[in-house]
Structures are given as C-alpha cells and as structure tokens.
C-alpha cells in the first residue's frame, strides 16, 4: 500500500492546501421527523480543498459499504486507494451520499421536495425563525 492511511493524508493535506469555503449548501428535511425544521449541511473547507485537489479522499462506495460494518470491525475507507480531483459540484454530490442518510437522498418516495442543493446566498441570514425553516415547495 503506497497511498497510506486516510487520516495521514488529511493531516498532510492540511499543511499544504488552503481551505475552500464552498459556494453551496445542502438543504434537507428528515422524513422520519416531519415536525423538525429543515437542516442545512455545511461542507467543511478543508475537506473541500482535499476533494478539489484529488488523491486524498477514498471512493464514495467505500463509505457506503462501511455503513454495514459493525462497530469495531475493520473498515474499508481509511485504506482505500484515493480518487482523483472532483469539481465542487461533484464534491457536493459525494458529500450528500456520505453525510446524509439514504432515507433522504435515495429512498424517499413522497411528493415533497426534501433535498435541495442551493447557493449559500439563498440561505436566510436572518435566523429569527430558524426553528421554523422549511424547504419551499
């Protein structure tokens, strides 16, 4: 194995890459908790820098396979061969599949729009009613 451990690659990348604040946010609602407000997924700037650089992050399929691995058992993603550079849009799609439950982005069959990728400017800066935010239909 020549590519090392994911954590080591992340540590090395943080010393070398400038963080990249994404111009996107992911708005989503959890269908299992319909009374809760819409959630906002914020991409990490160091993670985004690694995604845009390439040869640091593992294939998304390794995270998906690792979802079924019991606690304490060996996981695939820290040791997998890293993938190449992504565009910011591809990185956001990767992040949706990694950090949002499949019940939101894959399995939901209802009529509501429960996931939207939006420019960061579309997220209200006035948080007075934060706990009542819903995705506009």
């Amino acid at each position: 194995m020549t590519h090392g451990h994911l954590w080591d690659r992340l540590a090395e990348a943080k010393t070398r890459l400038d963080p990249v604040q994404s111009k996107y946010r992911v708005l989503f609602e959890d269908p299992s908790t319909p009374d809760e407000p819409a959630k906002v997924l914020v991409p990490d700037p160091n993670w985004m820098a690694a995604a845009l650089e390439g040869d640091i992050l593992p294939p998304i399929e390794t995270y998906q396979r690792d979802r079924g691995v019991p606690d304490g058992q060996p996981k695939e993603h820290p040791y997998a061969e890293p993938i190449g550079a992504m565009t910011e849009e591809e990185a956001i799609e990767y992040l949706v599949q990694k950090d949002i439950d499949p019940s939101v982005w894959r399995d939901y069959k209802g009529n509501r729009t429960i996931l939207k990728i939006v420019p960061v400017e579309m997220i209200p800066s006035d948080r007075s009613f934060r706990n009542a935010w819903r995705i506009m239909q």
Partner: protein
Amino acid sequence: MSTLEVSNLNDGTTTVATTYVTNGSLKSWIKPAADLSSISDSFNVSSLDDDGSGDGGVHITNDMSSANYVILGLTQDGGTTTFTRQCDITDGTQAAGTYDFEVYGLSSSQNRTNTDSQAFLATVGDLA
C-alpha cells in the same frame, strides 16, 4: 512525502512508544461559526449539520473505530454571570462517523433553551 518509521521516541532520558503519541492525539476537531452557518477551521471533518438554533451535527472524514470514543466540547459563556451556557452530545447520536451536539443556556429564571453560541468540539480515541 517522507516517512519516518520508528517504534520509540527518546528525549535523552525517557523513551516512549510512538503509539503513545498517536493514540493520545486528537483525531478530529472543529470550530463552527456560532450560528452554525460555516466552519471556521477543523481537522478530519467532512461537514457540519445546522439542525436548528443551538443544534448541530459533525460528520467525520476518517471514521473512529467504533462509537466508543470521547468527545470534548466547550462553549463560550457570553460574558454573563446571570446564566450558564453548556454544550452536550445529543443522546443516541454518537456513531463512529458522526455525532450531534446542542448548545444551550439556562438560568435561575429560564429553563434550558437552545441558543446560537460558539462551540468547540474534538474527538479522542481509536481510528478505523
């Protein structure tokens, strides 16, 4: 990238195994914006969830080996002496690759109320 392969470290008088250092280091950390709208800086974090006022979640890039790891969390006190602010981990949310946290204030005249306040979070334990 060059690699030093050493089993022990010695400062002239004391010898410790390199695992002594790697096992004891922080495995991830994050300083989100107080309102959870962005991330100021971090390590080994892929994203932050803004789930509501004082209600967030952290997703880790390189998972911990299991849910048996320690989360360190603090929040700023807001400069007041009439109430306290605290940060806790939401029951049942700690998993190998993610955890949820809440930041709230309470005082003698006000029950616990989630609030946007600066949190600082880190994880210690074994990596996957």
